[in-house]
């Protein structure tokens, strides 16, 4: 089975974010980056399918030069090769344009299965996978917790609201968006890191793919810190003092203990 996993590099989860002075994005000079967490689970799902059924796992990543680090980590975990769509201004692409970039790189690969995370930790549209399926004419399912390969088809476990699940069957080729927690993530081994150095990373540009960010369908006007909907009483003194102040409030003001 030929599996391609679309991954994205995003600011690390515990980053302290500040709005950039332009008001168009966040201050990104001092940020550290990592693989988008749901994409890490998509990669894991792909690697496990390969281990069970054979074939190959390639990763596809659109992002600036710094994304090469995330791509190398995916190769070190066991992906066989990578395609890096080098684009410094990915922020100018709306979800449809970003998916067009990915689709243009995927189309000639003719994969059996495309996997990606259910959403990104930065923009959080939760749309790229489904748009990609529509552009490529593939059946899809989202928020997937389990993938079983059958003869020429797959059976997946789809997460629904309030603790419900559903199995869905579909023919291959297909696209799935993977939920975090589908299985335990592996670490790269020393051998894996060594091997990754000789694995192929094919570099493409938006120009090579004939895709541009012009004529966006939606535009981000202004980024800002959220206004507080509640007035929060904050205790930031020494722990013992703060704990005593909080208990006082919970007992006499909120009257909940």
């Amino acid at each position, binding site marked *: 089975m030929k599996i391609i996993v679309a991954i994205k590099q995003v600011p690390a989860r515990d980053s302290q974010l500040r709005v950039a002075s332009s008001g168009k994005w*966040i201050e990104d000079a001092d940020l550290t980056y990592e693989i988008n967490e749901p994409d890490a689970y998509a990669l894991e799902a792909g690697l496990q399918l390969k281990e069970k059924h054979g074939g190959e796992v390639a990763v596809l990543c659109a992002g600036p030069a710094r994304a090469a680090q995330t791509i190398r980590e995916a190769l070190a975990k066991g992906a066989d090769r990578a395609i890096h769509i080098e684009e410094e201004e990915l922020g100018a692409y709306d979800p449809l344009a970003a998916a067009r970039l990915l689709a243009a790189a995927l189309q000639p690969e003719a994969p059996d299965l495309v996997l990606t995370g259910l959403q990104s930790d930065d923009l959080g549209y939760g749309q790229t996978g489904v748009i990609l399926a529509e552009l490529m004419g593939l059946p899809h399912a989202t928020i997937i917790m389990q993938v079983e390969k059958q003869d020429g088809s797959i059976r997946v476990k789809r997460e629904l609201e309030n603790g419900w699940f559903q199995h869905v069957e579909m023919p291959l080729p297909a696209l799935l968006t993977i939920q975090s927690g589908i299985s335990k993530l592996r670490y790269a081994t020393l051998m894996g890191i060594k091997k990754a150095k000789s694995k192929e990373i094919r570099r493409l540009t938006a120009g090579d793919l004939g895709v541009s960010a012009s004529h966006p369908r939606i535009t981000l006007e202004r980024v800002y810190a959220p206004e507080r909907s509640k007035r929060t009483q*904050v*205790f930031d003194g020494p722990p013992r003092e703060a704990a005593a102040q909080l208990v006082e409030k919970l007992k006499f003001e909120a009257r909940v203990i």
Partner: protein
Amino acid sequence: MSILAILEQREGQWNKMSFETLAAAQQMAQELGTTAGAAVVGQGVGALAKELGTKRLEKVYAVEHELLKDYTPDAYAAALRQLVEHAKPSLVLFPHTYQVRDFLPKLATALDRVAVSDVVAHRVENGRPVFVRQLFQGKVNVDVRFAAGDPNFASLQAGAYRADQAAEGTAPVETFAPQLAAGQIRTRPLEWFRESARAVDLSAAEIIVSVGRGIKEADNIPLVQKLADALGAELAASRPICDAGWLPMARQVGSSGQTVAPKLYLAVGISGAIQHLVGMKGSRTVVAINKDPNAPILEIADYAIVGDLFQVVPELTAAVEKAKS
């Protein structure tokens, strides 16, 4: 500009977010000086459409087809594309449910549009809507506008609009029969199921102490358990803790876990991603213990201790024990 709300039902039961979307459509229609309509999709949805006929709407569509009985993205996207081409709304609103997440991007792409997903608020500027959504798991907000012509699409986050504000009235019901063929539907949906009977019913708890990523490792869970014991509280967790197997899935609060509204919800080391907040924002009093003063959980907290939970939680446990003795 007219607004069409696409409401969600399953086996004749409304998804409770549907009426939030209905209320939002009415509100936006008023602000934009236009009319609102609503549609319900499925098989045998006549009774639900009739119920919508008692709301203040210009028109109600019952989108009926036997191939819409069980949800599939192929049938839903095809049927709604035909409805949009027939009704010609300017703006189509959806509740941001798991089902909508599964088909809305496909529908919008088929019509060469991008949906604005997971909207938390809106305003009207120069006669055009501006939508507010969250970035970076709720740490930052962004204003989004449509840059393409009509129709446009948006989905609304759970709890962003109030269902009880849906206005009453009368509306004519039109049955809309889309052209669908079984061969168009590529996925085969099977029965819904739950993993196991839930051992824990968090929704009945008066006090919940909930733990998140900040706890760092499984061995630290007893620290928070002690606080829960002191408060007589149920212990709960955000998704990553249950994913890691540190607490059972039955104790997960959030969009994929349980929805709770206790008297007191104490969030320990939980940053407050949207998926968690939708499961607990109805709590009467929210307390956050977090090292990050900018964590989104603080936006909805009544009280917060900003500090290292490993120092704060034992002190808090001791203070609660003292207050209760």
